[in-house]
């Protein structure tokens, strides 16, 4: 990134132009596939959100409009700054604009008006709403109104149930594309399960499931504290795909489904693995035992063992991909439409009697 230039709002484009003129000697090329508006409150998570944005930009150059609200400021303010983001990819010739808006107090209402003239025309507008959408916020309605796709992160939600309900409402009312970073984080596990149970025989065995155990990483950090969500997503996804009927849940995250399925979500602590990440999945189904567990020190690899009372298959490995910062995450939030599996999973979550479980 070039050094941020703090500028008056009416000099945003002209200052950007000056930076580009200075970069001309380095043969950097100005590129943008879409507009990416990011909204977050200033918190320890802000740097994490910035790192996600950097990953997006590396894969798909875009004009970023990064809005951060300082909720603890004593005085109202509005600051704007511009910079050019150069992907950290060796000698890439591509770079793109970033406009930063810091805001506090009653200046918040000015933000949509400040953003509008800087949206590049004819390009999609993605809104990364890094806050809980179930909590009312004066910027959500005006910013989502100009967005063609909204990206959420359930990690930012205080409670999963209102989050799921709100997203379903947004999708139904606006028929807008939605994505969720936490859903993207579970993609590797969904692929693993789908590719394991990919024959009629295996699928039939899976449908006789009697127990499911999911273990997640309970390592808490400053900005990752809702740690059960990814495991809940996997459970709700399986439940929705295999048409289980929810019966009851306990505070210890034990779930009962019809027909006679017992599911548990448990935690453990792995220091160097992403917080909330699913560590292992165990399934008992029709005399078959399926165990898939991340390999310590090779976290993105999963060892898979399938056995029955008669046979024990040789274990094999599955590459999950480094979803936390990798390509599949970027693809999920930018190029794919709304996942029908995701919508079904959200609906399932609303049926799971989450109460204060998550």
């Amino acid at each position, binding site marked *: 990134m070039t050094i941020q230039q703090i500028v008056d709002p009416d000099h945003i484009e002209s200052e950007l132009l000056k930076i580009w003129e200075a970069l001309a000697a380095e043969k950097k*090329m100005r*590129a943008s*596939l879409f507009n990416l508006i990011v909204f977050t409150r200033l918190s320890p998570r802000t740097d994490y959100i910035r790192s996600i944005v950097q990953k997006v930009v*590396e*894969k*798909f*150059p875009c004009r970023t409009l990064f809005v951060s609200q300082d909720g603890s400021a004593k005085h109202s303010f509005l600051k704007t700054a511009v910079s050019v983001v150069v*992907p950290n*990819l060796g000698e*890439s*010739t*591509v770079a793109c604009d970033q406009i930063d808006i810091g805001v506090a107090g009653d200046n918040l209402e000015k933000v949509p008006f400040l953003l509008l003239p800087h949206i590049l025309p004819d390009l999609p507008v993605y809104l990364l709403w890094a806050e809980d959408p179930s909590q009312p916020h004066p910027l959500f309605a005006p910013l989502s109104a100009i967005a063609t796709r909204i990206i959420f992160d359930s990690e930012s939600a205080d409670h999963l149930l209102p989050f799921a309900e709100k997203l379903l409402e947004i999708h139904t009312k606006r028929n807008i594309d939605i994505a969720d970073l936490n859903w993207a984080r579970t*993609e*590797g596990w*969904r*692929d*693993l*399960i*789908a*590719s394991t*149970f*990919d*024959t*009629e025989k295996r*699928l039939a065995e899976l449908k006789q499931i009697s127990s499911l155990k999911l273990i997640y990483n309970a390592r808490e950090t400053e900005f990752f504290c809702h740690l059960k969500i990814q495991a809940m997503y996997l459970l709700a996804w399986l439940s929705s*795909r*295999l048409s289980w009927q929810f019966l009851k849940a306990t505070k210890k995250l034990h779930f009962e489904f019809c027909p006679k399925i017992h599911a548990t979500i448990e935690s453990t602590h792995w220091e160097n693995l992403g917080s909330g990440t699913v560590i292992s999945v165990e399934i008992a189904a029709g005399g078959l035992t399926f165990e898939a567990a991340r390999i310590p020190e*090779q976290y993105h*690899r999963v060892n*898979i063992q399938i056995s029955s009372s008669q046979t024990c*298959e*040789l274990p*094999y*490995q*599955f*590459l*999950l*991909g480094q979803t936390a910062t990798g*390509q599949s995450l970027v693809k999920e939030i930018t190029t*794919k439409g709304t*996942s*029908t*599996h995701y919508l079904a999973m959200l609906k399932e979550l609303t049926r799971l009697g989450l109460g204060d479980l998550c």
Partner: protein
Amino acid sequence: MSTKLNPNPLQEPGRSSRNIDPCIVVIFGATGDLTGRKLAPALYNLGREGMLPPNFACVGFARREKTHEQFRSELKQDIGSYSRTQPIDEGFWNKFQEQIFYHRSEFDDDQGYRALADFLRQLDNRYATRGNRLFYLSVQPKFFPIIVQKLKANGLIYDSKTEGKWSRVIVEKPFGHDFGSAAILQKELSKDLDESQTYRIDHYLGKETVQNILVFRFANSIFESLWNYKHIDHVQITVAEEIGIGTRGQFFEEEGLLRDILQNHMMQLLSLVAMEPPVSLSASAIRDEKVKVLQSIRPLSPNDFENTVIRGQYGPGFINGQPVNGYRKEADVDPKSSVETYVALRLFIDNWRWAGVPFYLRGGKRLPKRGTEIAVTFKDAPGVLFQQQGKKHDPNVLALRIQPDEGISMKINCKVPGPSSPIQPVKMDFRYGSYFGQSPPEAYERLIWDCIVGDSTLFARADEVAQSWQIYTPLLEYWASHPPKDLPNYASGSWGPAAANAMIEKDGRTWRIL
């Protein structure tokens, strides 16, 4: 209207690319140049990006004595030299290499195939690969029939209707030497191999920019409505290479440029540019339309052989300021060789869409720069306005750059600021690199992956290959009986023989400078 049902509720069509059948890839000619330069890096990158099935193994099959460890070590070296991603991801490689094996045998030795079958069964048990096999024949075409025959005889190629497991064979080009030899080869292969199991590779089709031709044409309504004889003056397809023949002297002496580039790569480009919209994006629908284009090409006549087909051979000259030898001084080349290293010709497609529109094709070695491009030149606007001293404006040109600097540009006319209103052509330019930053997957990655998932869209079908040979075989026969007298006829580092310029200029047009 019927909707295709997704039988597996765990899979979401169009979203996940990871639900791939487990399989074993067997590479014949595993110690050859192609394996090292292209196939090994392709498999490595596919694996690294999680695109290979988790239950996967690769077996190299070749005639040299070698251990598994030696083979792995050589592949690692090749990947280190030729992979688009560097440096090697040691963590990934250390695990991946455990799934790579070597099998030594002659291509015609039954015992070797029996041992291969046993070995693959062992690997099936070890890696749960379920008997699925992809055989990549990276060998000289003369070995194709015997390898396929032995594979079949040893139960390694299944009946195409076998349920629960599959076997597929990728064959490298050239597929035949002319129409007759291609037909014989096809007849030989089809004794043991169904068309649905045969994947004739043309790596050009694996290039992202070539695949984008269909997207560009059929996902943008503004161009398709102009894509016909009413609006298009002519089309130029150029495949220019700066390099000479390098160490391929022996191969080139047998093949020549027409067989090496024009009959396959350039005809694929022409088919994609000229085809009608397919009824769907299925492999058969797209290939049906491509074949129709080839069937519509007006046969070249003896008059064309003399006047609108130009062959050339490079003489000495300069590339990047450095002197280079002529073709006849290259290694393994006859000093009196009459093999062509350049071809330019004009084709017509006699169908409703393209009536009267010439397609100029030009391919050559030792041209000033490397570049593959399709340029569509539109007809002039009615010349009543903005005339400048009787001169016509430049026509609009839409150029699809296939490589390098992949992208699309459009030449349009624009007013120069100021009172006298001169008209200046300007270029609107889209560059893949600007928008999509990172390096796209190599063609071989895409094609191997497509074969594993059973999608033959980007592979040439038997009738496509036959049709293309049908166009060029009379020309090749004519050339064989009429050796050229003026070779070499262009200097290395020039844009080809003067006769090629004269040919197009006679039509009132000029070759584009890339």
